[in-house]
């Protein structure tokens, strides 16, 4: 027993020594020659995807090798970037959204850069660059999804508004995700906060009385509880405005003529995904090229069918499945990023007490 402290102390001491040894190495690390091949590390979350040939074309034309590194889910990626602020684990980060972006700005994660391609941004996104520190790349809407087949079979009209969801007609039919652990879950909560203001807890109380089910993750809700996904018993789920086209694209064999799910366009919450140059990068010029590329028409046109979100540029024609089946939400709910950053903790705590979680 007496040995424990000694060994523990020894271990900690040794690890500190090794740590010190590692960090004191930095001046001697080799300088990358400007003329040689340049590698840019792109830090993204685990939903990032682009076509291989789009990436290959960029590498061929720019001479930059793009190394995509994953930082886990979006939240973990942002946490990692904040902890490494100033000495980043990559050169460019893509995928921080408007619920988390404020904290990254406060912590000095990004180096300002305004891409010449920004002029092509959709007008409502053009002014959301936080003084040019981040660049909007895509956006998507978190919306209530409806299993049309189920409602047709039951002979009930599907709900069309947030208010409907609290109506006894739709008792025990809705499944949402826990906002504390799921990104669409949080977006849906923010949407109700945006809609109902300070009265949002009353709305959730009514949802609770109406039998709303709370699931831990999007996959669990969509494949476990949603009637369409995997044989659950709830025909209304919080998902994305682009889930119906995804249903077509990822169908078995011959795609069906129409998706069997649809989107309720009321109460959608808009998520914007940003990219930015990580402060402290030793490849600032190449990193700028990567941002330009992410905003280029090639990448922007490639985004919808890979990530099932909408391109941030206004001049990109959408694929047919999007124009036909994705909901084009004109009046999505949105809260100021600063408000979200300041209040998300309180909102979650309050939501937890209303929902008994």
């Amino acid at each position, binding site marked *: 027993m007496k040995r424990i402290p000694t060994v523990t102390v020894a271990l900690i001491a040794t690890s500190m020594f090794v740590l010190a040894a590692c960090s004191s190495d930095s001046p001697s690390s080799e300088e990358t020659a400007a003329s040689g091949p340049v590698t840019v590390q792109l830090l993204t979350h685990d939903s990032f995807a682009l076509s291989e040939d789009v990436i290959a074309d960029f590498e061929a034309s720019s001479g930059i090798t793009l190394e995509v590194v*994953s930082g886990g889910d979006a939240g973990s990626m942002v946490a990692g970037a904040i902890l490494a602020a100033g000495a980043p684990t990559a050169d460019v980060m893509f995928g921080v959204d408007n619920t988390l972006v404020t904290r990254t700005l406060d912590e000095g994660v990004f180096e300002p850069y305004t891409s010449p391609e920004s002029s092509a941004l959709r007008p409502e996104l053009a002014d959301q660059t936080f003084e040019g520190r981040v660049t909007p790349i895509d956006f998507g809407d978190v919306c209530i999804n409806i299993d049309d087949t189920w409602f047709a079979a039951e002979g009930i009209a599907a709900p069309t508004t947030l208010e409907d969801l609290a109506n006894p007609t739709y008792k025990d039919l809705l499944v949402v995700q826990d906002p504390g652990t799921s990104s669409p879950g949080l977006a849906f909560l923010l949407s109700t906060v945006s809609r109902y203001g300070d009265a949002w807890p009353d709305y959730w109380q009514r949802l609770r009385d109406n039998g709303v089910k709370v699931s831990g993750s999007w996959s669990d809700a969509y494949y476990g509880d949603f009637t369409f996904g995997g044989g659950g018993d709830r025909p209304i789920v919080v998902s994305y405005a682009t889930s119906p086209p995804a249903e077509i694209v990822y169908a078995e064999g011959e795609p069906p003529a129409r998706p069997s799910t649809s989107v309720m366009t009321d109460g959608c919450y808009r998520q914007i995904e940003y990219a930015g140059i990580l402060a402290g990068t030793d490849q600032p010029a190449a990193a700028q090229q990567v941002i330009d590329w992410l905003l280029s028409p090639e990448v922007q046109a490639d985004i919808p069918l890979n990530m099932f979100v909408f391109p941030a540029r206004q001049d990109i024609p959408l694929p047919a499945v999007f124009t036909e089946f994705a909901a084009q939400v004109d009046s999505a709910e949105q809260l100021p990023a600063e408000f979200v950053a300041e209040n998300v903790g309180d909102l979650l705590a309050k939501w937890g007490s209303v929902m008994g979680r």
Partner: protein
Amino acid sequence: MTITTPTLHRSPGWLRWAWLVPAVFLVIFLGVPLVSLAAQIVSPDTISYFTDPLPWRVAGLATGQALLSTALALLLGLPMANVLTRYRFPGRRWALALATVPFVLPTVVVALAFRALLGASLGSGLAIVVLAHAYLNLAVVVRIVGARWATIDPRFETVARTLRADRLTAFRTVTLPALAPAIASAAAIVFVFSFTSLGIVLLLGDANTRTLESLVLRQTSVLLDFQGAAISAAIQAMVVGSVLLWAARQRSSGGTFRGGHLIRPDGFARIVVGIVIALTLLIVLAPVAALVWSSLRSSSGWTLSWWSSVFGAQTIDAGSTRIGSPLAAMGRSLAYALLTGIVAAIVGGMAAVSVLSGRIGRAFALATALPLGISAATLGLGTLLAYGREPLDLRATGMLVPMAHALIAVPLVVAVATPTLRAADSRLVTVAATLRARPSRAWWTAYGPILRTVMVAAGGLACAVSLGEFGAASFLARADGLTVPLVIARLLGRPGEASFGVAAVMAVILVVMTTALVAAVDKGGRRS
């Protein structure tokens, strides 16, 4: 006191330095990342966060849940360990390998299967979480207790029965005392896994079945409250450390080693063995059967297209980097698993024999168990800060994932090895020494066979850890270096029938890979 600990002067010289291997490994892959992370977060006012009642309340809830999960896992796992590791019957090796399957199933897959099977009757909450934890941890009990049980001469019980003890009394008075340290070891690890569980708790739990791990995730990923997360992680590490310390204190009694001798079941035993095998297959395979069913179904009926899309196309989404080649992910997962098994068996084996040699003792055993208490998020972030940026960016080497897996597996190897090795009769060393064997040879004569049995049991478990691990890999894998669990998670993260169907195929493949790999490791180890 009947503890038989070989003393250093009888052991070969290199044993004196064996502890350096695990020590260096732990410092590099655990110590440095944790210190890097702490250096970013901890400040003088971190201490004040300790007064926040929330993490303490969550710790209380998680303790109750983990105790129940542990009790159930032991209740189900002990009979399985007995039958699968001691009795001779056709297909024994495959049944043993199958019992490892629950351990590697991605939690999201287990959660979906449990909801499909039990969701209607149990809903979300404590009951289904405890069941799922017991299911996932069966392999821990079977492997750790089984490794010890297999080395106990069955004739001890026979002797007891000829001395007028009925079967139950013989078990209670003779076998149980010999198993106690292994049971304590297994119980501690099941407790720790249940106490730090993330996926199952998020997917099947409710307000009263939270864990500190889920709190840490929320604090780091949603609230970006790093101070709070550090406190939650520290409380978790403290609870885990105390539990492991308790387990390390459980004394072992000796028992003659007699490996490889299986009992031929007769009469009464035959019936019991049959029932336990049937129950094992039923429990293990029910969720797997649900997966196989999902992998063959589409909205239009039975289909083979999910299977052909995995083995036919280059990538699941032609022309896209989205998921990459599933075959490549399988190859990568297998390679990582083998590497993890080898590294963990060596590092854990050195740790176990160091503990045996007496000088380093339990404090060191505790240190090797520490990775169990460190959350995947903590480990992932720390490793990223330490080895994911200049001047030391190791991500491109592809070694970070298997090393993280080995780190997680080492405590399991130690847990399997120590109770069994400690029980090996050190008199064998003396006997061999009097026959003029050199110390090194004498030591190998005494410990070689038992060490191999143990390393194989442990290596198999380590492979399984690697095959199923998700949390650390999600931080450390490169976008073009996905493992099978990561592929499954990504598939399940998007809508569409194909996503779910192909995810089910990949999960079935993971089951097959695990069974085959663990069976192969067992077989390789048994062959002399």
